């Protein structure tokens, strides 16, 4: 029989990861599309430390092998993430699929990764020699290129505990269930004393990684909604210049047009 690993503790999982050439398998729903029978899997679905959802003073901590269904049931998880997760695939996939797997697969179409970009989430990466935290946007280096060493595992997704204020999540696919995003958008906007204190606009399934332009977001920071509305056209045209989609299952032109529509919809919903 070919070797396989199904550890029940994180310590055991990290040791196996460091000593063997293995492919980490959380929910399997991305990996099994290709189903390469020559791979040696490190099954993470029984590792207790990676299956729960906890909170500490700063973060909601979602175990990398926690299923979408558990995320939907959790009272700790912010609604924007639940909105995204509830539109992923269908129940039978949500019973298996995980955020850790979705992110580790490296696709810019990963719906849960998109929300992580909008919420400034961090990833905890662990190995036998220790753990480190990485900002989600620094984790994605390019198409299917991740800042992750051969001996590391994504162990947790950390969502800052903050009031994200207004949010919009849009997924454009070919059908309601079981759809791969053609374009997706996650936006948040919060106000403090009547002024915009945080804004994030993230675009998924458009380029090699999720797109977010922090420099452009700064145009609105510190402004009232009325002041932001006054420069809305400049804001939108700056995005129009910055978003350069790649061709995929759908054309560049289509993706670009949908991105701009979704951005405009988010701004309208935010009273800008």
């Amino acid at each position, binding site marked *: 029989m070919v070797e*396989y690993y199904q550890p029940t503790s994180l310590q055991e999982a990290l040791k196996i990861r460091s000593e063997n050439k293995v492919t980490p*398998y959380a929910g*399997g*729903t991305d990996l099994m599309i290709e189903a390469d029978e020559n*791979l040696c*899997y490190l099954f993470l679905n029984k590792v207790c430390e990676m299956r729960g959802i906890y909170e500490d003073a700063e973060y909601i901590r979602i175990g990398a092998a926690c299923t979408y269904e558990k995320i939907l049931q959790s009272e700790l998880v912010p609604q924007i993430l639940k909105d995204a997760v509830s539109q992923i*695939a269908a*129940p039978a996939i949500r*019973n298996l699929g995980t955020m850790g797997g979705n992110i580790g697969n490296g696709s810019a179409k990963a719906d849960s990764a998109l929300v992580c970009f909008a919420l400034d989430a961090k990833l905890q990466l662990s190995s036998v020699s220790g753990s480190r935290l990485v900002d989600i946007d620094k984790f994605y280096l390019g198409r299917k290129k991740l800042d992750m060493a051969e001996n590391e595992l994504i162990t947790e997704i950390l969502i800052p505990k903050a009031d994200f204020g207004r949010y919009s999540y849009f997924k454009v696919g070919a059908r309601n269930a*079981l759809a791969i995003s053609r374009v997706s958008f996650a936006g948040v906007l919060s106000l403090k004393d009547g002024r915009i204190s945080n804004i994030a606009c993230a675009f998924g399934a458009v380029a090699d990684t999720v797109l977010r332009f922090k420099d452009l977001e700064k145009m609105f920071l510190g402004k009232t909604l009325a002041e932001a509305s006054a420069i809305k056209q400049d804001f939108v045209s700056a995005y129009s210049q910055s978003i350069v989609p790649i061709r995929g299952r759908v054309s560049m032109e289509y993706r670009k047009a949908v991105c701009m529509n979704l951005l405009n919809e988010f701004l309208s919903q935010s009273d800008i």
Partner: protein
Amino acid sequence: MNSIDFVLNGKEVKFTGNPAARLLDVLRDDFRLTGVKCGCKEGECGACSVIIDGLLVNSCMVAMGSINGSTITTIEGYCETARYAVLDKAFASVSAVQCGYCIPGMVLAAECVLAKTPHPTEDEIRVGISGNLCRCTGYNAIVNAISIAAKEGNGLW
């Protein structure tokens, strides 16, 4: 680890083949459970649905190694139950079956809807079967059948 032990339709079984093999293929080819249908092998159609530890999953999306210690029910095991008898009668009563290819998966999806919500709304039924594609009936008859089963099988779920 050198074997994969699990409970299949109530019996303890052992698998010593490739841990990276798809559960779908093993169920059909090794265990000859051909009620588990193969539609797409990419998690898009639900024809291969089975119940693992009480949850609906697509068996094409599962590598054998991940199910060590699990309990699996396929349509062959489920059709021995009183709940199945109710669903069977309800599906037949409104002609919810045409070609039948999606039906083993659809019936197990219905079981999971009713196990979670014994008296589901139409929306809850539609979400529950949203991963199971049927190209014949247009779904209305199937949704109707599941509603009827919820009424007729009152107390079973």
